[in-house]
């Protein structure tokens, strides 16, 4: 489960932040997740609960899913791919490495494979609230 790897990354980031800021109790953690990452939130939450150290026990995790936005570098067209346009194995590949979109997607307007992922990738720690 690759959700576990990302959950581990999130917990270890929260630990680093709280150490650095001298926080001993955390109330709230907000995480921004790119849609392309296609994370199974149930598994992700479960992993977080299993992995969190004691002082994060009462912390509430908040998740914000950021919609995918791609922009063609040739014609400037912006679009959001629909999940159901992609077959299962491609979705899975993108789930592991979102940049794989560059192997499978094209600009729907001009057919170019040269596009930027403007939004929709990554797992970001937005903020932690604690004392």
């Amino acid at each position: 489960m690759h959700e576990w790897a990302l959950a581990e990354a999130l917990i270890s980031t929260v630990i680093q932040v709280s150490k650095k800021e001298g926080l001993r109790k955390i109330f709230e953690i907000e995480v921004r997740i790119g849609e392309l990452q296609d994370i199974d939130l149930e598994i992700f939450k479960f992993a977080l609960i299993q992995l969190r150290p004691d002082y994060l026990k009462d912390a509430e995790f908040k998740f914000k899913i950021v919609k995918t936005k791609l922009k063609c570098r040739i014609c400037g067209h912006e679009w959001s791919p629909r999940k159901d346009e992609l077959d299962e194995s491609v979705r899975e590949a993108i789930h592991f490495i979102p940049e794989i979109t560059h192997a499978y997607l094209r600009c729907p307007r001009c057919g170019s494979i040269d596009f930027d992922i403007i939004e929709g990738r990554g797992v970001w720690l937005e903020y932690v609230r604690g004392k």
Partner: protein
Amino acid sequence: MKSSSKWGNDVVNDKLKDVRLSVIDERIRDVKNVIAVSSGKGGVGKSLVASALSLSLARRGYGVGLFDLDLTSPSTHIILDVKDAQPIEDRGIVPPKIHGISYMSITYYSRDKPTPLRGRDFSNALIELMAITRWGTLDFLIIDMPPGISDATLDIIGLIKRSKFLIITTPSKLAFETVKKLIKLLSDLHIEIIGIIENMKIKESDFIKVNADKLGVKYLGEVNFDENLEDALGDVDKFSNTEFFKRIDGIVEELLKALAFEAQ
């Protein structure tokens, strides 16, 4: 991207925001040596050397991983005939063993499709791969590097700070000119250079050796141009019997000495 503070006690340092960065060191914690097979140029034999080196070390009983980080032009999967192997999902991704080597490549996901990656995409794909791949305990992690000293190489240097560099050149002045720049860059960044291998030698010349000495970089040995190599690509048994492989296998002795690694 919103700044960190919303209430008095909210904190997140900007650098820490990308959560994947925090586990990269952890993923290679139990890897003793990370060796980046690198050159200023393409086509000098990095992928061939990285593959032969990995095989040779694995056969000596060392725990070996091979990570193909030439993400836009991967080729070790062809040399080692990786076929349909796939990583296992277990709290991340565990690379499958190919001929005794834990093997990881973007081709598990991109298959044979071209995957153009600009600098930022390369960084992201690299960070993602580093963050999710669980190498476990290894004596050596061999990295097949992209050519040159552009974004991709700088990213790998920045993210995998423990990499020691094994540099490949051909006998040509043109190749060595780019290699000199790579060496200068690595020295400025205080990165360890294990040594230089001179590949595809076709006639006597001490140009590379003399110049390696001048730069204070260890000359690990030369490998002749092997006209039978092409036919052995993709057939590991055949590959292991090439003059090329035997020569690399010999240089591995030197390399282990250079790393002060006791033979098992």
